[in-house]
């Protein structure tokens, strides 16, 4: 089994940060309207740092795994840094070459997270 599949299946079967956050500072929903993946990302932010993350997903295996990996990756990160994360980071996190037709599945959680950070009303610093 490839490293890509190992990582994805592990995070799909045992997702980190799945569930809603109590007292989230921001919540953002994202969707791939044609394939039907839906993700909600929730963040707690203290003094410009992401201190806690949560996600809810009715989404494919790859998208759930990406949500798990991305929400792990940004924990403890400054919001301005999270806002600048590129899609390449999401693709790298899922552990390998993502087929072109599935790239949106892998990047949806990060895209949603970036929009969540952009929607924060709190001062960044």
């Amino acid at each position: 089994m490839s490293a890509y599949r190992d990582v994805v299946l592990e995070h799909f079967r045992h997702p980190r940060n799945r569930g809603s956050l109590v007292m989230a500072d921001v919540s953002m929903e994202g969707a791939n309207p044609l394939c039907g993946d839906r993700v909600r990302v929730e963040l707690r932010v203290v003094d410009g740092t992401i201190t806690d993350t949560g996600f809810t997903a009715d989404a494919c295996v790859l998208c759930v795994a990406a949500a798990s990996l991305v929400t792990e990756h940004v924990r403890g990160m400054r919001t301005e840094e999270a806002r600048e994360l590129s899609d390449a980071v999401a693709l790298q996190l899922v552990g390998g070459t993502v087929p072109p037709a599935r790239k949106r599945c892998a990047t949806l959680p990060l895209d949603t997270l970036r929009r969540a950070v952009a929607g924060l009303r709190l001062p960044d610093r």
Partner: protein
Amino acid sequence: MATLVAATGSTSKKVGAKMWVGASGRILGAVTIGGCVDARVIEAADEVIKTRRRTLLDISLDDDEAWEIGLTCGGSVEVLVEPLAPGDASDPILSAYGAVCDALAQDEAAVVATVLDGGDAGNAARVVLGSGGLVAGSLGNAALDEKTAAIAPQVISSGSSRTERIETPAGARRVYLERHAPPLTLVVVGAGQIAMSISRFARELEMRTIIVDGRPRYATRERFPDADEIQVGMPSEIVAAIRPGRSTAVILVAHDYKYELPVLRAVLRSAVPYVGLLGSRKRGAAVRQMLADEGFSADELSRVRTPIGLDIGGATAAEIALSILGEIIAVRRGRAK
């Protein structure tokens, strides 16, 4: 209000059929196939409206008469015709149906009982019963109320109304037990071709449908003109918010883990009597295994029906939809495994 309370032989309507005849001549519903029998009921109704006294019609048809109105053989029907006073809050019949509406709004079935003969006949007294016993009213006889309450759960589970002979210390009584249940709501997850056929057929079967999908271009009114509701969003959250209960069937036809797993997590610990999953045995087993790994019990997982539908060899979307609805009816009527 005319009610078909008992029937033998060939009849076109089931016990429980109703017809309302207004003082101004309006007619709504039917208790038989129509023709001469309904005409007799309408005549009797006109008299009941004048006298404000109820009557029990016993109408027998010999084979020739039956043939004339399109039935295959003779038989008899009993029709209870009673005066109603719309707008009169003290009318016991209206009060009873008010209690039934309250029960249905709580997703509970109810039975309305009334005495047809014996010493307590001739009055409109009603008792309303639920699965757990007395809900409202009385037949004016405590022993009769108690015995009727004991039968009510059987009437609810049987799926149909009926008349029973009940022994009491004061003698035997024939009691009509009318069953009312909330309409079945189909929650269909996955707005594809099979869902489109389900929605069309369900309308004819008097079932409500709620179409659920995360894809706005699929779950549209254009594709689902017969659906009662169309909801687009996170399917598992939509289904949980519907609070599916005993009168709900959840049909998963998305054929995609992305909706199946989250929706199953949301419904497997609910009271939903039917959960169907489109897919092969192998796929069904894989879904069950993933949920078992998450802690769902064998009992909970055994509720997932997959392959979905009755085995009628369905191949097209419409045929598969038909097999699913057939299975739901069979489950509701206690005929499915």
